């Protein structure tokens, strides 16, 4: 495997799995949302790093013969970032409601209360 040339993928997948681990292994709902954000960000990085062309510049027209980076991943990720924040806001609102209903945002305590019920 070409180690340096694919360093970006290695980092992206490490971050992705870190976020995944936080979502799976941590019980606090806020922490889970942060983990989800890390996961999202790693996907953004994956796309943007695929759009980079060596020696290229930002895709804004300038005079002369220039190599531009690929603008299409940028467009997709621009949309994804905004949608990601919208889902984050929704998740946090749900967490606030859960806190009001159960008095906690820890998954274990919520399950315990449900079982008692």
């Amino acid at each position, binding site marked *: 495997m070409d180690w340096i040339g694919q*360093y*970006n993928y290695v980092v992206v*997948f490490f971050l992705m799995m870190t976020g995944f681990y936080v979502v799976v292994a941590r019980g606090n709902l806020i922490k889970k949302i942060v983990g989800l954000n890390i996961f999202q960000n790693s996907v953004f990085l994956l796309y*943007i790093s695929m759009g980079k062309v060596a020696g290229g510049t930002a895709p804004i027209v300038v005079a002369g013969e220039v190599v531009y980076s690929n603008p299409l991943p940028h*467009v997709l990720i621009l949309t994804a970032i905004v949608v990601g924040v919208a889902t984050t806001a929704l998740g946090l609102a749900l967490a606030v409601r859960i806190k009001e209903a159960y008095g906690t945002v820890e998954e274990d305590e919520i399950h315990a209360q449900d079982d008692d019920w």
Partner: protein
Amino acid sequence: MLLTFLVVTALAVVRLRSLFAVVMLSGIYSLVTAGVFIALDAVDVAFTEAAVGAGIATMLMLGTLRLTGHRQVAPRHSPILPLLVVTITGGVLLWGTRDMPRFGDPQAPVHLHVAPRYIEDSPIEVGVPNMVTSVLASYRGFDTLGETAVVFTAGVGVLALLGIGGRRRRDTDGDDQD
């Protein structure tokens, strides 16, 4: 390299138990990501990430912490099973990307097929020098409209969950048993 710094921040997020510090770190994480985006020529994405990811998302999380408290209890389950799942998934992903093109390779398939058409024709067809803007607002205008609909729906959902103005307290309904 900035990417390595990202890894360090993410690891700190996993380890720390003070949620306030975690939220602050996630803000820093977003900001570093924005820096990486600039280095990768994605200036528009970097703007959005810095404003929306590092700004608005961090504010929302701080507001939530104010309402839910900022301590996390120690995890009770053993981390072996999640670690195993995560390691296997990561390994499979790495194995699956072994034949991906090298970073920055101008001959990568992504750069050969659709992108040149936009790079060459969009300044003439749309007249906006910034290609990202012209693709976002013109060629993919419907997609952006859909995005706006999603954000609107999320806003309505948040308002519906949290209540507008003074929320009605639990009164005679039978649905408040806590």
